[in-house]
């Protein structure tokens, strides 16, 4: 098994204080009003009235299991495995014997060739705009009604060039900024009543175990409705079982909770662990969890839409 590659993010632990300033959105506010607080007891470290961090409307509750869910086994690549020695010997022979042929080069991605054309178009458009601007300045000397028609044509030209530029930018944005890969972000919210959480341990499907210490300041932020990010990284787009343990004060069970989720391909999936309902004897299995997907597809403009 391999360890996941973590993305270059700011600190491993990130308090999303932004969410604390929008705790009363129309949907979330209604949900908060309809759901009574899990406990009115004052937590040891949390403020008396613990605001609940809001969830997006698309969030779906997921079950936290006490034991790891069993997984059905499927046979795969049977011929390969049954004939592994034969196939390996064939491939070994390939490396030992020069073929006498040149390796076929992969075709160049046509987009890379297109970028040069895009740059050339940009330069051409700039020249066209400059020429149009100079022409416009000359035309200003002739303040006649007929000149206004030419001015309008030039403005149309500028609009067209602007639209084309927007289309080119859209292509670049789609290729570089809009290529979301399959990613998982695990965030934690809430503080359990009467229990001090010192750290949260996450074991991913790959077997990688990540332990995140929770400082006093972070606990306070959680108590005020903040959200703590404990993991963000690339994951395979398939069913995953995430094991979560909550470690802390005396009496808090280290028993794990197991959550099954299936991050869709090329999307950012959030998994939120709400620690508010955690009971010391049950540990992590008594928390609640929800998941949602960030749909951040960027749509490139083809330049055909009307200008501003």
């Amino acid at each position: 098994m391999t360890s996941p590659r973590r993305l270059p993010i700011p600190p491993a632990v990130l308090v999303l204080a932004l969410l604390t300033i929008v705790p009363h959105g129309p949907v979330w506010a209604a949900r908060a009003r309809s759901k009574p607080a899990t406990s009115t007891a004052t937590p040891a470290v949390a403020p008396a009235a613990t605001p609940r961090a809001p969830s997006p409307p698309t969030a779906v509750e997921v079950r936290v299991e006490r034991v790891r869910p069993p997984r059905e086994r499927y046979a795969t690549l049977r011929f390969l495995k049954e004939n592994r020695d034969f196939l390996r010997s064939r491939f070994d022979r390939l490396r030992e014997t020069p073929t006498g042929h040149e390796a076929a080069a992969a075709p160049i991605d046509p987009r890379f060739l297109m970028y040069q054309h895009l740059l050339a178009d940009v330069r051409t458009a700039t020249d066209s705009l400059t020429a149009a601007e100079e022409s416009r300045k000359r035309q200003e000397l002739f303040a006649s009604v007929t000149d206004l028609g030419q001015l309008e044509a030039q403005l149309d030209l500028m609009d067209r060039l602007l639209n084309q530029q927007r289309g080119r930018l859209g292509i670049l944005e789609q290729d570089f900024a809009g290529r979301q890969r399959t990613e998982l972000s695990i965030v934690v919210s809430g503080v359990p009543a009467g229990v001090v959480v010192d750290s949260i341990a996450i074991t991913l499907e790959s077997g990688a175990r990540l332990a995140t210490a929770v400082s006093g300041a972070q606990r306070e932020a959680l108590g005020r409705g903040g959200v703590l990010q404990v993991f963000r990284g690339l994951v395979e787009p398939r069913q995953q079982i995430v094991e979560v343990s909550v470690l802390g004060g005396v009496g808090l069970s280290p028993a794990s909770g197991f959550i099954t989720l299936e991050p869709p391909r090329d999307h950012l999936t959030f998994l939120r662990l709400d620690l508010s309902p955690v009971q010391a004897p049950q540990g992590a299995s008594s928390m609640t969890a929800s998941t949602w997907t960030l749909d951040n597809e960027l749509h490139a403009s083809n330049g055909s839409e009307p200008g501003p």
Partner: protein
Amino acid sequence: MNHQGFGIVPRVPHLRGVNLVWVAALGLMLACAPRLSAREHPAFPASAGVAEAAAAAQVWAPDAFLVYLENDEDVDQTGAAERWGYLYFSPSLKQARGYSIRAGKILVADDLGMSFEAPPVSAQWIDSGAALAAAEENAGREFRTVHQGVLQTLLLARGAFHDDDPNLTTWTVIYSAPHAPSLFVMVDATDGKVRRTWRG
């Protein structure tokens, strides 16, 4: 599954020697069970699962490339299967990892657990349907008819079976029969022509 006389049979345990009472009981149970559709999951050609497998492989290792694929479930007469297995190799990790795709989802993701340094398959290759059609036309249909054979495996690899041109990416279609040596039909994955057939 109904293969409409194509000769392809599912991989099921052999029932020879099993008590007829048990067979009858099993039949009764099946008759009483809720009717399932002919296929529980849609069959698809091999190329349709590559995007899903590649997305996962890129997460596993950015330099991973496809080196091998084969059917994980029985292939129908159009060259489609409910499940295909895709094997990726990473030069930086020197490991291979397989993904089994069904209905657009990754059902299995496993490290191969052995060294398998294979060359990448070519960027362009004909799909499983065209490869099977070429094999059937050449020798496969006759083999199935004469020897009561069945299609067993459809696999794509580069350089594994062609001595004269190891750079060639080929489909290898393997037929088996109860009382005859298996038939191997190697189809050029670029132009769909049968390059070689042999028994073994």
